[in-house]
């Protein structure tokens, strides 16, 4: 990860993501819809970076590109120091598996697998033995307060508990960047708050960045930096973290 020097001459936290001039358009029939219009975006390790804005402004497209599951039409996208536009096919998948963790709005847990089995999936996919993977997953789930629910199926868990399993799945393989899409949208206020506290406590580390796309104003207080997006560009950056170089609105 690139380290940068802030205005005071001190080392700021390393860059987890650097996007410059990112463009992306989709075609609907003969009409091209420009979703990202030269978007610049930065996220640092050790910070919780929020990406907010109205529906249709391009938030999901941007994190899909950062998450290496959607390709940009133009621009530079460096994730954890890697120019991901140069990666193709299987190498992209390997990059995601090794470096990224995802938390989805719908959780997307496999209904036929237990909490432990779901949480261990990235390790199993990476080739670790099932037993070792599930042991690691169980430790993390216990830390997330699900020690007594390890063998329960998703259908037997509440929404908040399912989200915690999803958090465990996103973190079990030690990714350097965690990308969350509306992580509290399906949760009530209390569960959402708990999920965010756990995310801060477990996901955030000096060498790990967290990007959260959300509409949920109840959780804005957890952000270190908030990027407000509108019509495919970052319109405003605000924050409270010293690591951001003191950016504030």
């Amino acid at each position, binding site marked *: 990860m690139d380290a940068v020097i802030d205005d005071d001459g001190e080392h700021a936290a390393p860059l987890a993501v650097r996007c410059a001039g990112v463009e992306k358009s989709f075609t609907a029939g003969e009409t091209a819809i420009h979703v990202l219009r030269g978007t610049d975006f930065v996220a640092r390790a050790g910070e919780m970076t929020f990406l907010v804005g109205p529906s249709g402004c391009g938030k999901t497209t941007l994190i899909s590109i950062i*998450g290496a599951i*959607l390709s940009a039409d133009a621009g530079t996208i460096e994730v954890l120091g890697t120019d991901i536009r140069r990666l193709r096919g299987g190498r992209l998948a390997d990059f*995601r*598996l090794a470096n990224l963790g*995802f938390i989805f709005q719908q959780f*997307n847990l*496999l209904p036929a697998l237990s909490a432990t089995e779901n949480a261990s999936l990235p390790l*199993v996919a990476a080739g670790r033995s099932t037993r070792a993977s599930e042991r690691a997953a169980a430790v993390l789930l216990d830390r997330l307060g699900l020690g007594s629910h390890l063998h329960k199926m998703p259908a037997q868990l509440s929404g908040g508990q399912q989200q915690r399993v999803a958090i465990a799945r996103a973190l079990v393989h030690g990714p350097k960047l965690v990308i969350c899409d509306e992580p509290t949208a399906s949760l009530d206020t209390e569960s959402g708050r708990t999920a965010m506290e756990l995310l801060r406590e477990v996901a955030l580390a000096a060498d790990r960045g967290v990007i959260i796309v959300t509409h949920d104003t109840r959780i804005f207080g957890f952000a270190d930096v908030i990027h407000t997006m509108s019509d495919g560009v970052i319109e405003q950056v605000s924050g409270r973290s010293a690591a951001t170089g003191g950016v504030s609105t």
Partner: protein
Amino acid sequence: MLVVALRMLFGDATKCLGLVFGVALSTLLVCQQVSIFFGLLARAASVIDDVPEVDIWVMDPAVKTIEVPYPLRDTMLQRVRGVAGVTWAVPFFKATTQVRTRRGTLDNAIMVGVDDVSLVGVPDRFLLGTVDDLALPDAIAINPAGFRLLFPGEEPDVGRELALHDRRARIVAIVDSAPAFSANLSIYTRYSLATRYTNNGRNALSFVLAKADSAAAVPAVAARIAAVTGLKAIDRRTFRGETIGYILETTGIPASFGTVVILGVLIGIAIVGLTFNQFVMENIRQYAALKAIGVRNAWLLAMTLTQAAFVATIGYGIGLAAAAGFFATAGRADALRGFYLLPDVAIGVAILAGVIVLLAVTVSLRRVFFVDPATVFRG
């Protein structure tokens, strides 16, 4: 990940059972129909198979099948016997006749007349009596199914008498002949009696059965017989093939069985294809999530093939067991005797089951391959 694939499959018990049922049904249908088809073909050649000691069958050049013989002049027997390389030659009479059962109904019977002296041409599997008993006056041997047809409710036994074209015939032996194509009742007797029992007078000789000096000499001896007599002389294997070929060409049996087999395959593909497609569609977000996490397409392919292999193996096993059960139970009936689940058919259907499942999952596999992982970010 392969265990995960199976867990995903087991997690939807209804579809898992539907998939297995589809393969099992196809396997049962195809195994049963193909085995019966080959059983019928074997029946067509059963009279030939029952006399394996014969090397060469001699017949009128126009004859294409043992089912439709054309009478030869009796003198032909001596001419065949005179050909160099022929160890022995015997007359063989075969005709279809009618017998009246105890119920008063008429039924077809195959009448086989064999050499009065050597009795060559009678199957050697005697359940009651011996081949020598056929030398007795008015002696006939019949098969167990034929006995039960003539005397319903009675166990096969010797000593019973019946009238064949107003001539007395006495059952002296029960012979376990191979089930025939055109009748359930097979009657074996001496050549001289057979012509009387069927009211055939002169030129009753259906075939001449010949033995060559050695197995290696069979083609040459057959060619010499044909040259000397002007008749058709072919080895047992060739005659068997021609007889089966005749059935295939002139009856609707292949089309009928082929239709059922094709339907069985199509039903299997339809059930498995639709069910698997539904299974994939319902899990498409999970597949997308796996791809987003970083699971490669190669792993998704392996996972899908594992699910397909499981469905194919279990479905095939159940279908095969059902087919085997059918032949083990229904095969005891006289009408279905001689029909077996053939090993070659079982192997062929195993390959077919794999093809059915592969074809059925191909479309679904495409969905898995091309699912956009970004869909997981769309609420």
